[in-house]
């Protein structure tokens, strides 16, 4: 039996020293998906920012919306001997196994966009999704005194989508009780959004406002549906439906300029890439950080589970600031 | 008849199988209205009737595949077991069904022992024992197939022999054979009968279904006749001469004309001329058929006669040689081109190549001729229905109408649909491969009569058959042996001559 016992083990056994890193070495970058304009923009920024920060980043790996694929991707990167990982988890919890593997190998990880529930990461780089939902709610609440608003939600199983939905719901309930929230679960699918919005408008032609949780997928179908129903009125015209979007892609900016939609929350794809690289480099060099304000207009907070999160600011873009050259949506093609 | 005495004198009075007042309906079709059957232990009982009379339906009820809507089945005086208790049924009765009941993807050996594979400790199947036992079983039947072959690759007749061998190997006291001989040649039939007689002597009881009435007289003692879904009569075969039997089946007297083909008039031009045809299955065949001539192709299993016939219909591609049809070159390997050139064919196996079972009679019958039934390829439903109704009447198909799916048809009627399709295209050359397999006596008459009328309108007919009755109508019969033509018999041959040359006993 001694043989059996010695043969047994756990995937947690092989803790390597890990202290040998001197801030150099290859860095793996794992993406959650590529079929959204936002992640596509992030993907474009990664090599640029890596170069700017002096990080030797490998080609990005796409987990294609599959959490278990993401674990496999992390394992593969680790097997290749990367010294640091920048991961955008698909799920806050279903990333733990990957983080554990990295920790065992002594490889630091920076999480982008989603804060892991458990597991060790050097830093979380994200904008606050709860804040997105609140910003949208505040804006719509100010424009519309009372009436129906609809939120076009994402995949109900996605953390970011859930955060936005709940924040929006809660904020309306608390601050603008005269608004009635209708919901469209659209699974991040544009045709689902179009047909459900279409249907909803049949029953509620008096709709006053729309919150789209992802401009990248919902902008076109929303505008198209409104257009085909004759409900697309420019900002300022009577009967205009107030629309707040979320992402900050160039097409949203165009729509804002044309007055088709009111505002969008600009998710900082560029900053995600930039600070992802910045923090991984620091972590590989053994640097640590403390909660408090940063030098780039944001704040590092300590999450309940002890992780540090650099909460990047996500500006609300309206007609007033849509031409701001600092917005990443104005810097890409 | 069995010479064994049962333990108690009583039991000889209790019939082995007794079915009473059986009724079975499929939707609007009444397949069986008043089915009755009483089979005494040890006797061989024949069940006859026209196509669609309800024989196979009765078989499926007697073997526990289906429950009757009405009526009772008793074995040895006991009520039949519930349908779900397959094991109990298996101890009572074994059966060769009319439709193939093999699993095509499994090997022959496994099909022989399906669900009763020899198993050792812990229920582990011993493939070696399975193989040897299968080989033994096939050997006793003289079936020359590899026990390891995929059953789907077998020829129809071999598959049929495998099914027969399987049914007879169960050791059941009661065995049902539903048209076992329709796909077999005379040698195989003889082998089957020898075996049946031996089993009869050891006390096995048979229920035997066939449209070859001479076989009924050869192996059976009693006969039950069904007509129009009803029981008509049960009698010792000796009391029911052939003519009376046919009358009971058909409900009218049928004149079986003893035809002697008149032969083609000498001046008729050659319609089909083939030269030096060669393929893997046959070699260097020269063949001519005149307008209005009926030529038979005979040969034992594996002689290549079927491939030869198929070559003309585009179903088999010769590697060498050429053929002329009505002055033009006959293209090979392309059914559509052959059809256009004027060849129609009844293929060898109606299940495999003959019918699309999910489609209706009308669709199946008109499948090859739609081009001619309307303009631009469109066919009006009425036109198709009319055409199909006409075919149904002409060939006397027992069906509700052209809209009925062919899967509902009885075996013989399904065969007639295939025949109908071949005739539908008004061909110049009609290639018939086992055209009367499973067709009842009266219908066979009308099918064969169609061959005669072909003569009048100048159609050439090539008949491949294992049945002497079919071949008798031919102006001449060519015999193939191992892929070569070894003999030619002009009309008027004697059975033994033909059989001898088929067997290759005596060439010349």
């Amino acid at each position, binding site marked *: 039996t001694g043989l059996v016992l010695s043969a047994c083990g756990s995937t947690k056994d092989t803790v390597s020293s890990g202290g040998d890193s001197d801030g150099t070495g290859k860095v793996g970058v794992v993406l959650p998906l590529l079929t959204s304009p936002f992640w596509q923009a992030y993907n474009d920024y990664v090599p640029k920012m890596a170069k700017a920060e002096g990080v030797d980043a490998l080609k990005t790996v796409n987990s294609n919306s599959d959490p278990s694929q993401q674990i496999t991707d992390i394992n593969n990167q680790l097997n290749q001997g990367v010294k640091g990982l920048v991961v955008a988890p698909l799920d806050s919890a279903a990333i733990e196994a990957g983080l554990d593997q990295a920790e065992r190998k002594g490889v630091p990880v920076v999480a982008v966009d989603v804060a892991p529930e458990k597991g060790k990461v050097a830093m979380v780089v994200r904008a606050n999704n709860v804040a997105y939902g609140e910003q949208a709610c505040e804006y719509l609440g100010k424009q519309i005194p009372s009436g129906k608003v609809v939120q076009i939600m994402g995949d109900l199983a996605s953390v970011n989508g859930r955060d936005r939905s709940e924040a929006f719901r809660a904020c309306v309930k608390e601050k603008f009780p005269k608004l009635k929230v209708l919901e469209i679960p659209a699974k991040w699918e544009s045709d689902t959004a179009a047909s459900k919005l279409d249907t909803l408008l049949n029953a509620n032609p008096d709709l006053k406002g729309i919150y789209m949780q992802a401009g990248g997928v919902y902008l076109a179908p929303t505008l198209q549906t409104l257009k085909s129903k004759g409900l697309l009125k420019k900002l300022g015209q009577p009967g205009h439906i107030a629309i707040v979007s979320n992402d900050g892609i160039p097409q949203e900016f165009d729509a804002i300029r044309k007055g088709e939609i009111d505002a969008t929350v600009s998710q900082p794809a560029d900053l995600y890439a930039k600070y992802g690289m910045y923090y991984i480099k620091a972590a590989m060099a053994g640097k640590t950080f403390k909660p408090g304000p940063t030098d780039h207009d944001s704040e590092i907070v300590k999450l309940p589970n002890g992780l540090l999160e650099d909460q990047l600011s996500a500006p609300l873009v309206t007609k007033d600031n849509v031409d701001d050259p600092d917005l990443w949506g104005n810097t890409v093609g | 008849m069995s010479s064994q005495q049962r333990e108690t004198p009583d039991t000889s009075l209790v019939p082995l199988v007794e079915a009473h007042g059986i009724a079975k309906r499929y939707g609007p079709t009444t397949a069986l209205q008043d089915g009755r059957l009483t089979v005494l232990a040890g006797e061989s009982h024949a069940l006859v009737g026209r196509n669609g009379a309800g024989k196979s339906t009765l078989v499926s009820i007697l073997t526990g595949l289906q429950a009757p809507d009405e009526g009772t089945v008793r074995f040895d005086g006991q009520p039949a077991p519930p349908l779900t208790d397959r094991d109990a049924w298996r101890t009572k009765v074994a059966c060769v069904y009319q439709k193939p009941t093999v699993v095509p993807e499994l090997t022959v050996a496994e099909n022989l022992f399906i669900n009763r594979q020899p198993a050792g400790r812990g229920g582990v199947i011993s493939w070696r024992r399975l193989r040897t036992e299968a080989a033994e079983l096939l050997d006793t039947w003289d079936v020359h197939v590899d026990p390891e072959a995929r059953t789907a690759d077998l020829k129809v007749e071999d598959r049929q022999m495998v099914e027969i061998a399987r049914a007879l190997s169960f050791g059941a006291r009661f065995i049902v054979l539903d048209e076992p001989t329709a796909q077999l040649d005379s040698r195989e039939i003889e082998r089957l009968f020898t075996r049946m007689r031996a089993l009869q002597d050891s006390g096995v009881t048979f229920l035997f279904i066939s449209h070859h009435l001479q076989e009924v007289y050869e192996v059976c003692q009693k006969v039950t006749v069904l007509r129009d879904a*009803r029981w008509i009569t049960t009698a010792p075969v000796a009391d029911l001469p052939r003519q009376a039997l046919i009358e009971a089946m058909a409900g009218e007297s049928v004149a079986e004309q003893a035809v002697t083909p008149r032969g083609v008039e000498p001046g008729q031009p050659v319609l089909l001329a083939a030269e030096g045809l060669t393929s893997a299955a046959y070699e260097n065949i020269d063949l001519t058929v005149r307008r209005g001539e009926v030529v038979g192709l005979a040969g034992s299993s594996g002689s290549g006669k079927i491939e030869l016939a198929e070559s003309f219909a585009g179903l088999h591609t010769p590697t060498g040689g050429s053929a002329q049809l009505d002055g033009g070159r006959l293209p090979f390997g392309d*059914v559509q081109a052959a059809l256009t050139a004027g060849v129609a064919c009844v293929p060898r196996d109606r299940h495999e190549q003959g019918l699309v079972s999910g489609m209706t009679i009308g669709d199946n019958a008109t499948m090859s001729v739609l081009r001619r039934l309307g303009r631009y390829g469109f066919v009006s439903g009425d036109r198709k229905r009319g055409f199909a109704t006409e075919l149904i009447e002409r060939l006397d198909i027992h069906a509700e109408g052209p809209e009925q799916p062919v899967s509902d048809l009885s075996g013989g009627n399904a065969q007639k649909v295939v025949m109908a399709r071949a005739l539908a295209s008004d061909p110049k050359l009609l290639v018939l491969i086992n055209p009367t397999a499973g067709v009842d006596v009266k219908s066979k008459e009308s099918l064969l009569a169609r061959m005669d009328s072909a003569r009048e309108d100048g159609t050439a007919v090539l008949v491949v058959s294992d049945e002497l009755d079919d071949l008798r109508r031919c102006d001449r019969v060519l015999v193939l042996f191992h892929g070569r033509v070894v003999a030619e018999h002009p009309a008027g041959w004697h059975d033994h001559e033909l059989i001898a040359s088929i067997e290759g006993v005596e060439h010349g």
Partner: protein
Amino acid sequence: MADTKAPPLAPLRAPDPRSAKTVLLRRARELALVPALLLLMVLGTVVNDSFLTERNLISILGASAALAMVVLAESLVLITGKFDLSLESVVGIAPAIGALLVLPVAQSGWGTEFPAALALLAILVVGAAVGAFNGLLVVKLKLNAFIVTLAMLIVLRGLLVGSTKGKTLFGMPDSFYSLATTTFLHVPLSVWVAGACFAVAGMVLKYHRVGRALYAIGGNADAARAAGIRVERVMLGVFVVAGALAAVGGIMQTGYVGAISANQGNNMIFTVFAAAVIGGISLDGGKGTMFGALTGVLLLGVVQNLLTLAQVPSFWIQAIYGGIILVALMIARVTTGRAQD
């Protein structure tokens, strides 16, 4: 007991084949969903006032048009006894290539800036070409249709993501959207087109030689070959036509959502199969009608619409959706009284 002669019998007559009941029984397969559909309509009217309005019914149709085209395409392939999973990717890649051909480089296009009409033609050609490629692999190389088209699905999805770099394509000429945005008698053109395609396909399948050939091939390819049908050629043709029809579906989808995302068509094939199969198209081939397939599409459209109108708590929408499909299947089973295959 021998020699008992039965009394003379009046021959049993088969029932009149044209009687209403026999005809209905025979059409059971295609009419199976009608009761369930009616029930849902009644339910819809009760649940929400706006359900039975012209506007809403048109919405249902407009939302289903693209799906209907792909279901039509898939049904043709299924009737022939094959599979084509890659149709969902055609819905994405075909219009995307068309868009890339018209768009300037600045809008992520290829900069070829084709005229719109040519680009629309190119969309159809792409669809047909994908179909032809699948067809060749399946028919000539004799690869397994399910897995070949699954691989193609992945390849095409990948090509779409790769060639657009994941970007959503916007700003194509109006003609890209006009199928969904132009209306005739208040009904979007896409609905008319889909309706016409179904009608034509239905007629061809029922009354044309080629249509009958599809059923024959799907039912028993060997028998079809022996009956003189050029099985390979017809099958190849079906793949090509299906590809082109799916491409039309892709244009409709583009018009409906107003852009082409790199996700367009993803996971659509599940819904396509669901609609076709509940509509009575058999996966074994040889069975089913266009009318049945259409009822399948409508059923799914109505259920989706109903669920949205009813504002069912969003967490439970999916479960209820699936549940309704299950119940509809059972209703179909009970009302037709026949096993489903």
